[in-house]
């Protein structure tokens, strides 16, 4: 591909808005070029980018990604460097000096120790540090795996265990703690080990699928065609089949490796990244990236293939004459460095697990980001977009905001009730799951998103109590949670094994209680759990405040539609056993009353769709000003809520003073002033009643006879009676 074409393409990406891509890299990159560098190495255990020179190792910390991060350097002895990794406690640097020698360099003491293997029979393929309980250093050789323990104090290396396998090449990610050893003629037989803190798990040997191109020519699987990825805490292996142009997907279980279908590939060179549990398949030749959400059952891409975008690249420097950029200005300077920076999918790009791109030729490191805005804008299938957004953890707040916007938009646009109902289902299911796993409240506390009403609006106790009853609709809750900490792992395992009834899957279900065998492999990834603190889940109260009430203000007319939406929302919430708050019911009453649908309002109250509360009762009283039966519902609700004082007052307001008196006597309501009763009786213009009320208070209320009320109304009563006497 010539550079002109590529640069023009890059400029398209630059000039366009976010809608032209769903994935972007953010300018500026981390500059990792260093004079005298002998290459760049990525230490994924420590998230360090390492650049050894002749006598030192320069390192940049890449997590959290910070373009201006200070480099640090450690001096080491001179010599060739084939590979380098820091120990997990960052004290020792292991350097592969040759195919037979590993040097351990103690940073503090500055001394070193060399470990050699038999040069005639085996060759070192690579090594990595591990936090496994059994060993801390693993050496991968052509003859197999050596699990070693290196003690920096005594400078002593000890062989713990050795696994004999013929190895052609291997791949390892620290994220999954999984090492895959390729063997065989075609390098398609794999042996896997997971070196987790729980111990070493040996995976069953398995073969990858390889399509034959022509007779007798057997393709050989290369290391760069196999990727281990971790999404939603599950471990997958992706294998590029260059002949069939497919990306085969396998999922790892403790006792099985299960094919999960294939994804199409549109480029001879394919690489993968994982950003926020979304699988990104880079079609390098086609210069596009396709997104897949492996959580969903379907293997359909999240969105259409679109190029990777370089975002925030300083356009000024590109077009200005001072810039070395030659775009359109007729500058005849040699190809500048900046030109290279803008070229997407250059030859020098190396993809680091999970979401880094290293431009080795120009020494730049990019981090890949998802553009949630454009992803959510690109699909009209709102429920599935919401589902996608709800699963995002990295930019949870952003996803949450987008979800709220989407919800508001579909209501404002008067989408079909069914669509909105599905969307509500998605949001409520997600919220309920977040509550169950406790992520929601963690998120609240961590982010202080809604700290002002946490204690009033979100009382987790009733909700969790209801969850623990374990209803049938609650989803998969049977899996042993101590083994699989991630909620996604649980639900997906069940749902998957329900759909594809393979034997292995079933066994993984059956053995959930007894223990170690056939449980899906999970990555015991601390870093991921940290990022899970926040969640995009939206509480009913937030939905009310940011969607329903604001929509109500914006929408003029058609309260019936909004009522329909609220009913659907209640249905979703009830299914998930999520409690509602009175403000929502108050809004419902207002809407129904505004639409003049008092009959339905009555039905809603009587069937307890609108749950009784003081706020609701008062709204009924308010809305019932023009409609006495509705007002009665409000008064009745006050009585049922045992709000004696309010009930008596409302009765008095409506002129039912005798009933109010009877009730006040029965329930010993002494907080209502006698004058209110007397006034009501006086207004009714019935002297007998006024007399009885007066008598009532004289008899039952100590000291009433001495009050001004007694005197006043006694006088009024005399005046009322006098004309009768006179006549």
């Amino acid at each position, binding site marked *: 591909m010539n550079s002109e074409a590529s640069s023009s393409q890059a400029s398209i990406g630059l000039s366009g808005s976010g809608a032209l891509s769903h994935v972007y890299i953010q300018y500026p990159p981390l500059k990792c070029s260093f004079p005298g560098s002998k290459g760049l190495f990525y230490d994924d255990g420590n998230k360090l980018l390492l650049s050894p020179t002749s006598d030192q190792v320069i390192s940049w910390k890449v997590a959290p990604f910070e373009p201006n991060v200070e480099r640090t350097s450690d001096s080491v002895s001179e010599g060739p460097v084939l590979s380098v990794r820091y120990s997990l406690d960052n004290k020792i640097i292991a350097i592969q000096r040759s195919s037979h020698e590993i040097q351990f360099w103690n940073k503090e003491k500055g001394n070193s120790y060399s470990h050699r293997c038999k040069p005639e029979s085996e060759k070192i393929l690579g090594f990595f540090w591990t936090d496994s309980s059994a060993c801390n250093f693993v050496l991968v050789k052509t003859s197999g795996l050596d699990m070693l323990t290196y003690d920096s104090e005594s400078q002593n290396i000890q062989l713990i265990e050795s696994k004999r396998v013929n190895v052609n090449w291997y791949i390892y990610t620290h994220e999954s703690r999984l090492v895959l050893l390729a063997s065989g003629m075609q390098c398609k037989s794999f042996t896997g080990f997971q070196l987790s803190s729980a111990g070493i798990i040996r995976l069953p040997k398995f073969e990858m699928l390889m399509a034959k191109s022509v007779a007798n020519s057997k393709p050989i699987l290369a290391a760069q065609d196999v990727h281990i990825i971790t999404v939603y805490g599950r471990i997958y292996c992706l294998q590029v089949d260059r002949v069939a142009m497919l990306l085969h997907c396998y999922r790892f279980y403790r006792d099985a490796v299960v094919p999960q279908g294939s994804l199409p590939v549109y480029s001879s060179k394919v690489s993968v990244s994982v950003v926020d549990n979304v699988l990104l398949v880079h079609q390098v030749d086609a210069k596009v990236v396709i997104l897949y959400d492996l959580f969903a059952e379907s293997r359909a891409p999240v969105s259409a293939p679109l190029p990777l975008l370089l975002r925030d690249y300083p356009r000024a420097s590109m077009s200005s004459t001072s810039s070395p950029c030659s775009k359109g200005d007729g500058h005849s300077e040699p190809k500048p460095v900046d030109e290279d920076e803008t070229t997407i999918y250059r030859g020098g790009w190396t993809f680091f697990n999970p979401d880094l791109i290293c431009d080795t030729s120009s020494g730049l490191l990019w981090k890949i980001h998802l553009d949630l805005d454009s992803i959510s804008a690109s699909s009209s299938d709102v429920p599935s977009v919401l589902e996608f957004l709800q699963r995002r953890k990295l930019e949870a707040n952003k996803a949450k905001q987008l979800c709220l916007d989407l919800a508001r938009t579909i209501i404002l646009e008067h989408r079909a009730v069914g669509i909105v109902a599905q969307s509500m289902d998605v949001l409520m299911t997600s919220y309920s799951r977040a509550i169950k796993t406790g992520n929601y409240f963690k998120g609240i506390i961590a982010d202080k998103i809604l700290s002002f009403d946490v204690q009033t609006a979100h009382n987790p106790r009733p909700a969790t109590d209801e969850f623990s009853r374990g209803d049938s609709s609650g989803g998969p809750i049977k899996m042993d949670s101590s083994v699989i900490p991630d909620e996604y792992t649980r639900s997906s395992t069940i749902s998957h094994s329900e759909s594809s009834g393979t034997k292995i899957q079933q066994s993984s279900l059956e053995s959930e209680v007894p223990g170690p065998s056939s449980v899906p492999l999970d990555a015991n990834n601390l870093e991921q759990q940290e990022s899970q603190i926040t969640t995009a889940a939206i509480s009913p109260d937030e939905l009310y405040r940011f969607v329903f009430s604001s929509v109500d203000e914006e929408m003029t007319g058609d309260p019936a539609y909004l009522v329909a939406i609220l009913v659907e929302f209640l249905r979703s919430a009830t299914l998930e056993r999520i409690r509602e708050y009175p403000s929502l019911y108050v809004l419902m009453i207002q809407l129904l009353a505004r639409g003049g649908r008092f009959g339905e309002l009555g039905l809603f109250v009587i069937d307890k769709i609108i749950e009784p509360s003081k706020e609701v009762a008062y709204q009924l009283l308010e809305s019932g000003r023009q409609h006495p039966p509705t007002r009665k519902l409000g008064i009745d609700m006050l009585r*049922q809520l045992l709000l004696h004082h309010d009930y008596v007052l409302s009765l008095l307001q409506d002129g039912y003073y005798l009933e109010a008196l009877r009730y006040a006597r029965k329930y010993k309501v002494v907080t209502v002033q006698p004058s209110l009763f007397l006034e009501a009786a006086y207004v009714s213009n019935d002297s007998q009643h006024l007399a009885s009320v007066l008598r009532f208070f004289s008899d039952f209320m100590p000291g009433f006879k001495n009050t001004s009320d007694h005197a006043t109304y006694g006088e009024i009563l005399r005046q009322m009676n006098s004309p009768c006497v006179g006549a």
Partner: protein
Amino acid sequence: MGLYSTATISADAVKLCVFDLRRGQREGEEVEKILYFYPSELPLTDQLSVIGLSEGLITFTRIFSPDAACEVIEAERHSHVFYEAEPDVWMVMVVEKNKELEGIWRIEALRGMLKEVHSLFVMFNGSIRAMLDKESTGALIRSHLFSFITDYLFDFLAGKKLQLPSFHDSLQERGTVQMLTVGREAAIEIQSLVRVLESCAGSAGCHSLVLFHDLLVSTSVCPDDTVNLYTYAVLRMTPRALSASGSSWSYIRKGNTAAHLTTGSILPTSSTSTERVQGSRDTSPSGENRYLIARPLQQGKWSKGKDGFLVTNQWGSDMNASFPTVWLQQTKERMYLCAHQHKNVTIILLIPVTSINNAEREIPVLKQQLLENASLKILKVEEKLAKGWGGENAYHVSGYRYLLVDGDRCVSRASPAAKAATLAKESLVAMCKLREEVDMEKSRTKDDDVNHDKDLEVCIRAKNNSWIVARILRGKELYVVLEKANETLLYASDAIEKFSNRYCNGTFS
């Protein structure tokens, strides 16, 4: 009900007429006043004498009470029940008092019948006055009233006699709706279905009713319209009604002649008197007149189609041919009546006539849409309701025989008829009399103060030592019969309080 042959009044003992005071003002044209008379074979002179007497009484009582004239006349041998259905259009029912037959009834219950048949008539045909204005000869209204009221009375026919509401029905309230009590979850599910139904039709003015068995589950029209539609549905559309008419299906399907033969027993259509009353009628033996008349109350009018929608044979109103329409009082709008049934769930959907241009084409499309969008929800609702369904005696409370009426919402709930029937006759008669008293008290306060309901509590010890209790509180009424109860009043009032707390949300305590 055949058990209570005592309550049956011989056909001759009941007269029912509809007349218009604005017509036939000149001497010799009195017959013009008569819009409907039952029994129609009664000689015209007798008919005129009944109407003349009624008119005289109305005119006389109007002197004292111009707004609300005569309600009832108790003569030595007859009771005359008056109902001014529309201004100057009166319905009068004359019932013969028969000591032997213990003709004990409640006037309000009889008036309830008049009200019911009139409001049903208006629902389907619009007001009598409007029809009179449309065709001043009266032939149109006469033929409509004739078939409508005849079909209505057909339901009261036991053998050859009319069986009117009597004291046995004192724990029932005509003109109210019986509702199914549902749990919150089911209620939300139902409302969700209702929204889908109403959104299906696309226009905002749609309404719906949902019934389960003979009980109302949901409605979106005002109480009066709900009562009418509910009454009609229970009479002709619910699964029970359909199966009842299904037994006589084959012979009704033979055609209108057959149907007329059955009604002929109370009303021979070819009799000369009717011909005279109805003015210009052809004398075809089938009795069909020249107007194409929809007979919504005809037995076996509805049947269930394969797609679950209820279909009706030849509605034949003069408006849009084959799709039944009804008038809503609330919105003063004519609506297409569309009914769907799944097992015991009956859904009535009302679509404004104005929103549909071509009914023949659009309504089937609409039905199809409904099935596509709502059938899953209907299944779900049916399942939920069937699971929670307590059977016929779900609302029986042991030890109590009760009637609970919510006047605001026109809703009532009562002990199951079979349970109420176990009461001693004395108790029922006493309750009937008590209710008569309460009715009078209520109508008195209605005149006094429109805004305020009268609160009332009455406890009676009947001859057979049962307690008969009526309690009226802010528009809600509770009638209870306690048999085999303790003899103290305290006991009775405690029992009522207990009942109120348990089953009425404490309304009466």
